[in-house]
């Protein structure tokens, strides 16, 4: 189950598992953001390729308008997967 919420500090909070079954929910939330947003991974246990695709598509859309997603609070494993996949060339990770 994925709990995905937005706050008024332009931050998206992810909690639980961001997999194929939750990709549509994530898409709906991410489609509603514009400009630069921070995505807080600290509550995220697992992210699959379906979740990563949502983030990539959102980043591409935001880039076109001069915005971006900033990723924070990743577990060491998730951060390692991002780096191995080369996604650190597309996202700023802190």
């Amino acid at each position: 189950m994925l709990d995905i919420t937005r706050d008024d500090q332009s931050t998206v909070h992810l909690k639980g598992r961001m997999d194929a079954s939750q990709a549509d929910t994530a898409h709906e939330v991410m489609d509603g953001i514009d400009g630069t947003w921070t995505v807080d991974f600290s509550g995220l246990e697992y992210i699959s390729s379906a979740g990563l695709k949502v983030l990539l598509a959102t980043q591409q859309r935001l880039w076109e308008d001069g915005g971006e997603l900033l990723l924070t609070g990743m577990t060491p494993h998730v951060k390692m997967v991002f780096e191995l996949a080369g996604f650190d060339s597309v996202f700023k990770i802190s």
Partner: protein
Amino acid sequence: MIGLHAAASFLPVLLFLAILRSVDPYRLVSARSLGLALLGGCVAAVVAFGLNGVIRDALGLSELALSRYAGPLVEEFLKGAVVAILLLRNRAGFLVDAAILGFAIGAGFACVENLYLLTTRDLGLATWIVRGFGTAIMHGGATAVFAILAKLAEERRDRVTLVGLLPPLAAAFALHSLFNHFVLPPLLSTAVIALSVPLLVAVVFSKSEASTRDWIVGGFDADQEVLQLMETGVLSDSRVGHYLGELKARFPGEILVDMLCLVRLEAELSIRAKGILMMREAGFDPKPDDALKAKIHETRYLEESIGSVGRRALDPFLRIRGKEQWQRSVLGVR
């Protein structure tokens, strides 16, 4: 006028090739592979030119028999040989890139053929339209059909075999020979080819795109899982861990360590390759990473250290051939 004739003879097939490559969201065919395929097609055309002449003289064939039967067989055989070489060298991972490479080989062939005719014959514009939109697209289409069927045969048999290449050759020959029979008026034949080849390619693209997506998604998540198992130290409790445990009795300790390193490294490289494809699909243009060269060199060292028996032992969950071998080309490092 020569400029118009040249444009009519070269542009349609090259433009079609460029469109084919650009509509592939994963950009599976590198510029280098495309260049090699075009060059291969050019070489096949030169060889075919000589061979057709030898066969015609040796068998006393008429021009009609040569153009309807012997020529198509020789030409499709030679273009198919180039496809087979590219498949053996793991240049095509899916039907989409096989189709693009096949079409490129046919395009290279057609360009050389048209260049020869442009420089030796004085033909009218209608003929160049037929040759550019009909014959050239037919050459590309026939070889694309060969490549698609050969790739399917390779996937079924798990390797490229001579027997597996015979039905693709028969199909490409039938298409080429039928076109050369000119059952329909030339301009109508040209229209049929110019419409049917893109339709065929569109069907293949839509089917293959789904399988490419499934492979990326399934593979990425499986590789990530392997890494997580290794990270958390619970690999020994997994199916992979049990299997590696069974190998303890058959291989020395240092080889087993190399096996584990290879499993991890292959998972890392596989994640990068699929990550690149996912980024391309999303519209990004990831640059080649020179740091990957060290990892590729390390996998080669480990593969040598483990040896062929060790690699075969790892086959049930680490198949370093086919798509897994091909995906290294996505990394931009071989």
